[in-house]
């Protein structure tokens, strides 16, 4: 099975448990020389754990790892690097305020008579990047470049400092544009041509098919199998990942058609020319009870800014907001909660979860905030509420007392959803509720949104995936360059929306 001639890394019977979770169960994984190997699976499938073990961030409970045919114990990420295994994470771990060249060569600058030879540093950096077909000014700060360039700089650094044989890319494309993704893929293919093996983790199935040679599927901590990408039908791949077939998407479409009959006629929330200088151009928007309004647009088009204005994180500099016909005066999260408005923020890690608190505490937080400091929810009530939503949203957690940081991304998102549902909102704003979440949970959340709408809740749905916005929304607002451009009814086709989004770029 393991053949050192073709396989550079062979991981066998890797087993790992965390408190309450059996994260990996006797997983085998082999990485061939000079291949791009995609690693896919739902959240909590064990991808991250497997990668952490490969890169030395975690130690397996049992199992063996062979590198170049020799057994190794990978002690730390640094040790992994010295063995030739380098990782580039989703969040770029470089210094944005240093120049590109400094970032690439920090710690191994060429010196001349005891001091750093800066022209040599810059020349060397330029040469390295040229090797990846990237021509940029290496003397500018890294932070002035796009995330894609930063990521490629991180890859370049990984190659420089460790002469990597194995490169692990952990969801590198999740915040890249289509164009940037292509740029990254070119680099990946080039490296593959030079004999470097790449492990590529992604949630985007298109990308799996586009760039990878083989794909390994994990599910619930167990290995499903490793397949040649070319011969694997997409539907089969999804079925392997989910362990069930996806007729659910059809259900959602049907569900949406049904729920559209329940949309109220009176406006729930009315935005009249509200805007925030430097953040969002003034816009009008009317939301009705029972209606799902999707916000479509590119990253940075103003979707999040619009959501925050509606929620009242920032006080608008122009215009007015009316809820139930009454003007809104209290622009603060607590004011919004009192009005019955909820916001699941885009950045789950920074603005959503409180990592060290338990699932229960995370769920009751907003509700408790609305009750104030002294009308304390008793522990019994807290458990009752938490357990209700754990069951309702099928949150996978050993107990309500588990710290939320131990949950997978999708389950954390469900907890944040539960936090807001517990406040019984009449308007729920979901900013990228499905980012970094597996296909199954995505479908769950979309269905949930539609059932809530059917019960009379109004919903603003923001997603980078146009397909998803289309599937769930009764009405779609298109944004571009921090301004509202137009509105479409929910049955518009994606081509029309994309044309509007693209107009300014033409």
């Amino acid at each position, binding site marked *: 099975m393991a053949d050192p001639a073709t396989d550079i890394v062979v991981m066998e019977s890797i087993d790992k448990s965390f408190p309450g979770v059996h994260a990996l169960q006797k997983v085998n994984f082999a990485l061939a020389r000079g291949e791009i190997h995609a690693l896919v699976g739902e959240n909590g499938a064990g991808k991250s754990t497997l990668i952490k073990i490969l890169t030395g961030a975690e130690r397996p409970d049992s199992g063996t790892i062979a590198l170049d045919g020799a057994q190794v114990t990978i002690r730390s990420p640094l040790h992994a690097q010295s063995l030739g295994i380098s990782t580039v994470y989703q969040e770029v771990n470089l210094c944005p305020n240093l120049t590109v060249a400094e970032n690439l060569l920090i710690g191994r600058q060429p010196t001349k008579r005891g001091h750093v030879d800066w022209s040599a540093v810059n020349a060397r950096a330029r040469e390295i990047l040229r090797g990846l077909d990237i021509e940029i000014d290496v003397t500018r700060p890294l932070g002035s470049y796009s995330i894609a360039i930063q990521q490629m700089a991180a890859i370049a650094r990984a190659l420089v400092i460790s002469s990597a044989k194995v490169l692990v890319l952990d969801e590198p494309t999740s915040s890249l544009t289509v164009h940037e993704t292509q740029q990254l893929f070119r680099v990946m293919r080039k490296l593959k041509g030079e004999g470097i093996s790449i492990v590529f983790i992604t949630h985007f199935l298109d990308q799996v098919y586009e760039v990878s040679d083989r794909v390994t599927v994990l599910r619930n901590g167990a290995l499903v199998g490793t397949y040649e990408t070319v011969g694997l039908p997409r539907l089969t791949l999804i079925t392997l990942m989910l362990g069930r077939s996806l007729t659910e998407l059809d259900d959602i479409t049907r569900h949406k058609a049904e729920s559209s009959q329940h949309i109220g006629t009176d406006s729930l929330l009315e935005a009249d020319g509200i805007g925030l200088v430097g953040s969002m151009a003034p816009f009008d928007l009317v939301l009705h009870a029972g209606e799902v309004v999707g916000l479509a647009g590119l990253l940075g088009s103003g979707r999040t800014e619009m959501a925050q204005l509606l929620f009242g*994180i920032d006080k608008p500099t122009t215009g007015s907001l009316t809820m139930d016909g009454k003007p809104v005066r209290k622009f*603060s*999260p*607590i004011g*919004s*909660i009192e009005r019955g408005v909820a*916001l699941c*923020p885009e950045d789950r890690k*920074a*603005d*959503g*979860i*409180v*990592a*060290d*608190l338990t699932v229960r*505490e995370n769920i009751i*937080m*907003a509700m*408790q*905030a*609305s*009750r*104030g*400091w*002294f*009308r*304390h*929810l008793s522990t019994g009530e807290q458990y009752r509420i938490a357990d209700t939503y754990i069951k309702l949203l099928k949150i996978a957690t050993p107990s309500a007392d588990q710290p939320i940081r131990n949950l997978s991304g999708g389950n954390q998102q469900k907890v944040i959803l539960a*936090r807001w549902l517990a406040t019984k909102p009449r308007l729920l704003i979901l900013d990228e509720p499905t980012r970094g979440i597996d296909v199954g949970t995505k479908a769950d959340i979309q269905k949930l949104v539609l059932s809530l709408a059917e019960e009379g809740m109004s919903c603003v749905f923001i997603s980078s995936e146009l397909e998803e916005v289309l599937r769930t929304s009764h009405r779609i607002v298109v944004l571009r360059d921090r301004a509202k451009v137009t509105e479409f009814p929910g049955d518009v086709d994606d081509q029309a929306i994309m044309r509007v989004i693209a107009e300014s770029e033409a």
Partner: protein
Amino acid sequence: MKTLRPSINLGRVVESRLFVPVLALSVILLFDLVFVRGFFNLEMKDGHLYGSLIDILRNSAPTVVLAIGMTLVIATGGVDLSVGAIMAIAGSVACILIDPRIVGLNLQGNITAVVGDPTYSFAPIPVVILLSLLAAVACGLWNGLLVSFGRIQPMVATLILMIAGRGIAQLITNSIKIIIFNDSFAYIGNGFIVLPFSLFIVVALFVGAWLLTRRTAIGLFVESVGISFRASLYSGINEKMIKLFAYAFCGFCAGVAGLISVSSIRTSDANQIGLYTELDAILAVVIGGTLLGTGGRFSLLGSVIGGLVIQATQTSMYAIGVAASAITAVKAVMVISVILLYSQQVQDLVRKGAGRLGRKQAAA
């Protein structure tokens, strides 16, 4: 071969939040049991209990009181360096209210006639206590305003009062040390109801603080703000008010500690009251398991035990004849040990060690 299997729950014991403080206290008491003769002796004299243990409890009162307030501040991710100075301010306010004549504010009476009068007080004692505590709370509010609304680094914000506070305390008493003859006020720090009266204050404050944080939502909000103030903000928690509350409460505790200290030595000495106690208070909280710098989960009981650990160490060192000047070295060793015990790496090592031990025994 029959083996005991103590390692089963070792991991859980190590992870318990009170593990380090209880361990530290046990180590010190064990040390005393072995090296200090008669350390655990208790004696009943005139209806009062005497003994080294009682001394520790009594002498630790100011530190423990400070640590209770400091716990909330540290849990919000901050720190309060000014508690020592606030103690001095509260003490000065109390003294000037008990005996303002000496400073020249109210010199109608014949000074020599009343000096030494154990019943004399310019303001009634309850008013003295109330106004001193109010002054301390005002100091705490000042810190809180700088940190929450001013968005100033807690260390810098409270440094201002740490430095200026003793000057303010000096101003209040016109730089004169006021000796207190009033016996009712002296009772706070010197009284006995079998046990020292200050102990009852500590217990009342602890119970009050526990109820205030754990029987309301304040505890949860404090932890939540400490862990992620942005997520707290988005959830509708008024993080500014929470921080303001934490610093104000810390100021209140410093006021209580100041009253105990001044009362027990019967003198206002703005340069000495509460000197360096902020460091003991912070150390007590850290020993108690609340993370300095990052904040988040806090344990009031842990901080109380932490305060006892510090005092017990000090008393034990004196008991075996260590010079007062060398005590700081002992404290340094304690700080290093505690920090090591809390470090993730050491905990991982212990856990691994426990696991290995467990496997070995299972095999045996």
